[in-house]
């Protein structure tokens, strides 16, 4: 995907109050809009919002009401929305230029994906007469014998599980009979244990199954003609014959599997989304649903979260981050973060690779140019390392110091030292508390992603006995995949060295965290040892 800078208008970020786009029309959008406006920022909604809680799970009816009530009176609910779906979201300076399906095009400083879930389909093995559990069934309980099935084939999210237990309890108190069949009772928060206890005291039966999935049958031969389902389940504690549960209704509590994510977002977050289109969040930097694309946030189901309380927290956390982004970060821009030289042929490799949408193309009829947005750039240097023309330069990586390193290696003689390149966030911090092997020279970089093949081979050619690259663990890499780039480059160099230099120099890659100083020493010592062996 290419992010062309479509508009060239000069926006004064210091004075103009920029708006934040909220995509979605349900409770999540309502929560996000409210969180944004609470901070004095201005939200624009794609759709008219109805704070419908139907697809949201909360264990506590009273809290749900106290959350929903102020939301249902919010002034923004009566405001006119854009009533449009985004078709294309493109980076535009510090903001985003969004093209909608009704032809509208507007610039926003941030975009929030706040869509709700779609109900999950019944899993295989459950009769089609059953209904997937939704919190809304609370209002239409028949007061009969009802079975709630959790953890069927996959662990039910605790928020959904608690919601189901809450409903089971309500049904029991309303004169019905509730059976909850599960593997693990969710007991989140102070509320969870007391809800579980209340349900047990009220007489809700909890059956605990193990590796054997319960069998659910649709019946019409029951003594009580109204029983529509029979469940055969083995309780792992009772450990006897199957327990037979007959009931009027069965509600499997199933995790939602898909979200209403607009195609434009899937495209925008291409390598950060799973098959459902929700944010993968396998990085610790994605807490709360913040994406690696600066200014793009996912809240609620779009980040895989169906817990109401957590969604409220995530909305607030992201809104605070967005406020920072909108109001402060533009003031922190630095001119000198990266330079693009005349060598640039506009191949747009950098633009494709940047995980942060920091690079865009200023399109001109005669000669377009590559522009780096310093507010977005995290100085990982992936683009610099991969630029086929070496037209980019990241100032955080000091060429001068690197040349000095090469000089030192050459001066001190072949095979005397090994060089340890390490990301400052992990190896760099660990270095502050350890002393490395005397034959190892540590060289910190802003991100292992900056370590181009040319840097690595230059080090090898400068007669280092070995080159060790210490990246962050994937998931902790601040630029998402800088560490993976480093790994790939080390593998590539190794491949080539093996064919040419017959194993005399070792280039290796390992991952490390800041809180692993002891492991760092061990890795480096082992590396130093192994390079020695090869030399001998």
């Amino acid at each position: 995907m290419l992010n062309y800078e479509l508009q060239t208008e000069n926006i004064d970020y210091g004075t103009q109050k920029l708006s934040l786009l909220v995509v979605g029309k349900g409770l999540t959008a309502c929560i996000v809009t409210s969180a944004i406006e609470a901070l004095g920022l201005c939200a624009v909604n794609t759709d008219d919002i109805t704070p419908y809680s139907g697809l949201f799970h909360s264990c506590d009816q009273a809290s749900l009401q106290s959350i929903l009530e102020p939301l249902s009176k919010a002034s923004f609910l009566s405001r006119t929305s854009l009533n449009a779906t985004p078709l294309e979201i493109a980076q535009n300076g510090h903001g985003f230029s969004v093209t909608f399906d009704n032809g509208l095009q507007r610039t926003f400083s941030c975009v929030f994906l706040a869509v709700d879930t779609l109900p999950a389909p019944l899993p295989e093995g459950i009769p089609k007469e059953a209904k997937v559990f939704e919190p809304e069934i609370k209002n239409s309980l028949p007061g009969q014998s009802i079975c709630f099935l959790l953890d069927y084939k996959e662990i039910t999210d605790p928020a959904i599980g608690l919601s189901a237990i809450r409903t089971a309890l309500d049904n029991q108190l309303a004169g019905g009979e509730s059976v909850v069949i599960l593997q693990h009772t969710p007991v989140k928060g102070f509320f969870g244990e007391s809800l579980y206890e209340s349900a047990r005291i009220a007489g809700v039966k909890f059956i605990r199954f193990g590796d054997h999935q319960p069998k659910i049958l649709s019946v019409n031969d029951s003594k009580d003609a109204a029983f529509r389902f029979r469940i055969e389940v083995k309780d792992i504690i009772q450990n006897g014959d199957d327990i037979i549960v007959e009931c009027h209704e069965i509600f499997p509590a199933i995790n939602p599997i898909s979200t209403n994510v607009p195609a434009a977002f899937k495209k925008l977050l291409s390598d950060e989304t799973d098959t459902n289109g929700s944010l993968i969040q396998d990085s610790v930097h994605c807490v709360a649903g913040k994406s690696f694309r600066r200014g793009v946030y996912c809240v609620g189901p779009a980040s895989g979260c169906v817990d109401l309380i957590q969604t409220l927290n995530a909305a607030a956390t992201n809104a605070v981050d967005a406020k920072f982004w909108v109001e402060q970060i533009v003031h922190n821009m630095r001119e000198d973060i990266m330079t693009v030289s005349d060598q640039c042929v506009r191949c747009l490799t950098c633009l494709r690779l940047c995980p942060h949408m920091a690079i865009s193309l200023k399109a001109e009829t005669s000669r377009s140019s590559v522009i780096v947005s310093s507010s977005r750039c995290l100085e990982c240097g992936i683009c610099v390392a991969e630029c086929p023309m070496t037209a980019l330069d990241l100032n955080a990586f000091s060429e001068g110091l690197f040349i000095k390193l090469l000089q030192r290696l050459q001066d001190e003689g072949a095979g005397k030292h090994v060089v340890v390149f390490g990301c400052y966030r992990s190896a760099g911090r660990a270095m502050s508390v350890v002393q490395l092997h005397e034959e190892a020279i540590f060289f910190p970089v802003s991100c292992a992603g900056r370590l181009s093949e040319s840097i690595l081979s230059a080090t090898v050619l400068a007669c280092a006995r070995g080159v060790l690259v210490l990246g962050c663990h994937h998931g902790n890499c601040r630029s998402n995949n800088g560490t993976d780039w480093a790994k790939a480059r080390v593998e590539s160099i190794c491949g080539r060295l093996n064919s040419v230099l017959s194993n005399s120099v070792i280039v290796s890659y390992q991952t490390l965290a800041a809180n692993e100083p002891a492991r760092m020493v061990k890795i480096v010592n082992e590396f130093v040892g192994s390079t020695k062996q090869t030399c001998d």
Partner: protein
Amino acid sequence: MLRTDERKIMIIGGGIAGLAVGKSLSDNRIPFVLVEKTDELGGHSKSWACMATEGCLSCHGCLVYDYDDEVSSSQIGQIYLGHELSHVERSSKGNQKVRIRNIQNGDETELEVYSIVIAVGFDVFDPKEKSFWGYGRIDGVMTLADLNIIMRLDQTEKLNPSQKDSVDLAFFQCVGSRDKSIGCNYCSQYCCGAAIRATLKLIHERPEFHFTIFYIDLQLPGKTLPSLMDEARAKGVSFLQGVPGEISQAEDGKLQVLLEVDGINVAKEFDRIILSVGQQPPSSAALLSHILGAPLNEFGFFDTGTLADPARSAVGGVYVVGSCSGPATIEDSVLSAGRVVSAIIADMNEAR
């Protein structure tokens, strides 16, 4: 131009929650004073070991280093290490006069702050309280916190001192959690994930380790943990429902527990047993509650009123963040920090 608010926020506690609040305030140009009773920022998260195997297992422990850096280098933050809050003179409008005490020499410093954030975290349950488990009495019984120290120091070989080909280890979940008899009738939230991550990490480093995780109910919220459990199962970790209530030492020095497997009572032996100890209210809670007037709940954590507004305490201008209002993971603490900063900004805007 950049404008810094003249009103100052005081954060009590320099663990992950306090640091996350400090970072976020600093981002938003709101000055802060962070008071930490120990001599180091980072709290429990900093004593945690990295759980990464081939990739990161999303324990979020690394975040504390980023936040520490940002808070420590903030131009608009003051940090008092080795200090604690000693006195607050409340006023309904404007700044509150507070005094903080240098724990070492007793010197007091007077400050004026606009509002106060309680971020004093949790205490770890001491399993000696229930001596059936033999902690402190039987060699080889350790807590998750002890295990983390060993893992941090990269001394996992200590868990197999006689270098055996096969070592049996077990995790006991819910030690000091979900237990009325010790006043902790709540789930501690973090331990299931922590135990599963630790087994994966240790198996990765030491293939000779074999794990059994004894649980009551596994709590696996989010997308990551269920897949980590599947991975652990695939790597041979046994998950057994029911946590043995007693550990005894067999003649051969091994740790023996009686339990039920597939309906039959059996005696099993382990080389090490790790107690997944729960979170308890911080020891400083009672005194702080007295100084600030912020009430505690029935378990001794700071009361935050309703689920709808977990950021504000019952007292105006006093906010509660992280695990001092109830057991929390690192991720939970970071999210609650966002919620608190959002509430602070909203309240400051309103006051203007």
